[in-house]
């Protein structure tokens, strides 16, 4: 039950993009088309789960025992960067088709603050291993949900007569604002 609530919380109430402002760059950048958004979502789901797991293990086996919590940022970012690069190389070799679909988003993920954000957040919130896993997976699903909805809306805006000043990022941000407004309806769904 506790994990179910955490899952609901991660997807709807504490949505990474709409309420925690993590991963805004890809949210604005890679949401022009639904197909692209889908690819990016998959890539994020994959990397976020992996990165959170690895950093969690690293933190509790290496940094904490040695009292080196302050090295968290630097170690995490290093691990994530190499992990992403590793994944990219692996996919490129193993499955060119998958690389075509996902690979092109991977370099963008290194600087996706959602990945590092979730990795650090799990440590700060003190989740156990399962909690971390649920948080990462459903956080990514929440990210994917917002990204997909947003991509659909942006595809529609393309056929709209948006005023010059609001073209591009401005109207996108306002869409995100209203979406975030609507998602506030979920508040109170999970006690506490």
């Amino acid at each position, binding site marked *: 039950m506790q994990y179910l609530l955490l899952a609901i919380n991660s997807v709807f109430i504490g949505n990474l993009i709409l309420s925690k402002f993590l991963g805004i760059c890809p949210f604005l950048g890679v949401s022009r088309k639904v197909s692209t958004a889908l690819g990016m979502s998959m890539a994020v789901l994959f990397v976020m789960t992996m990165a959170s797991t690895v950093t969690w293990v*690293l933190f509790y086996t*290496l*940094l904490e025992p*040695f*009292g*080196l919590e302050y*090295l968290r940022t*630097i*170690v995490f970012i*290093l*691990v994530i*960067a*190499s992990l992403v*690069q*590793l994944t990219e*190389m*692996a996919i*490129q*070799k*193993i499955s060119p088709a998958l690389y075509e679909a996902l690979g092109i988003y991977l370099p963008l993920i290194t600087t996706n603050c959602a990945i590092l954000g979730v990795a650090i957040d799990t440590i700060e919130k003190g989740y156990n291993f399962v909690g971390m896993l649920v948080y990462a997976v459903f956080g990514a699903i929440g990210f994917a949900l917002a990204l997909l909805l947003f991509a659909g809306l942006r595809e529609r805006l393309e056929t709209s007569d948006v005023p010059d000043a609001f073209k591009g990022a401005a109207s996108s941000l306002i869409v995100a604002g209203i979406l975030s407004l609507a998602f506030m309806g979920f508040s109170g769904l999970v006690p506490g």
Partner: protein
Amino acid sequence: MSEILTAILVLTGVGLAAGLLLSYFSRVFYVEEDPRIDLVEEALPGANCGACGMAGCRDYAKAVATSQDVPGCPVGGPETAVKIAEIMGSEASEVEKMVALVKCAGTMERTTRRGELVGISDCRSASLIGGNKECRYGCLGYGDCMSVCPVNAIKIYSGNIAVVDPDVCIGCGLCVKACPLGIIDMVPASRTMHVLCSSKDAGAQVKKACQVGCIGCKICSRKDSSFQIEDNLAVFTGTEGNADAPFVCPNDVIVDTRVYSVLSFVESEKAREHFTNAKEKFKTLEREERARIAAEKKAALEKAKNSEKKDDEKIKKSAEKQSRED
């Protein structure tokens, strides 16, 4: 002290592990990709305009790196071509800077209108219904080209004529694709003589439809061999051309950009007036010249009549020569 030491150790360890892992796997997962692609891409203007026909600069770079037979980047011009050639180690194929030219000067006043279009104001659409001018090759003037131009080099003048500003034009060629009538051409920027008409109709038809249409009379091609008549339409193939060519054209279709800009030739009444005066002057001059030659010929003939046979051949020759000059 020991704390610092552990910190350094851990960091080094993590860094080392990551580095080793990466360098190992980079060998395991090595996928060959031409390093020149990146270099070429860097040399490109990076506008991702697609004027070359590829999907963006990266795609173009890939094409350049993999095959020899790739057209030059029209936006970057010669500079880029040289750079790319350096990277690829081959000779630069000479790329001349090209600019767009709308081959029509049929403003409202100079053309016959046909029908009255009600509905979508858009060239592509209007062209499907037969246009708004009697001439099927006349600029429709709804500005499809203007709206695709990335640098705003095209404007619509006199209500329905698009004119390209050659100084602003970057030669991307998007307007050529946008024009449903196909009356926009890419021409070398250095060219100074243009035929401002695209009508392939027969002379009589053109006369009915437009005051400034090419009727395919061939006078210009007789004057200057770099003009050629194809399908009832004069086409200029050279670069500079005979400065007299505009004056011999009976319908004022040829513009010499050393004297008038295309815009002023199309749009400015003053320039037209000036041109007409100059043409008149030229015609008078030519008439005088012709009269002089005729007089000389006549005199020579008379002289020949008077004189004996010995001069005959000489006179004949000169007469022939003169007639050739005619």
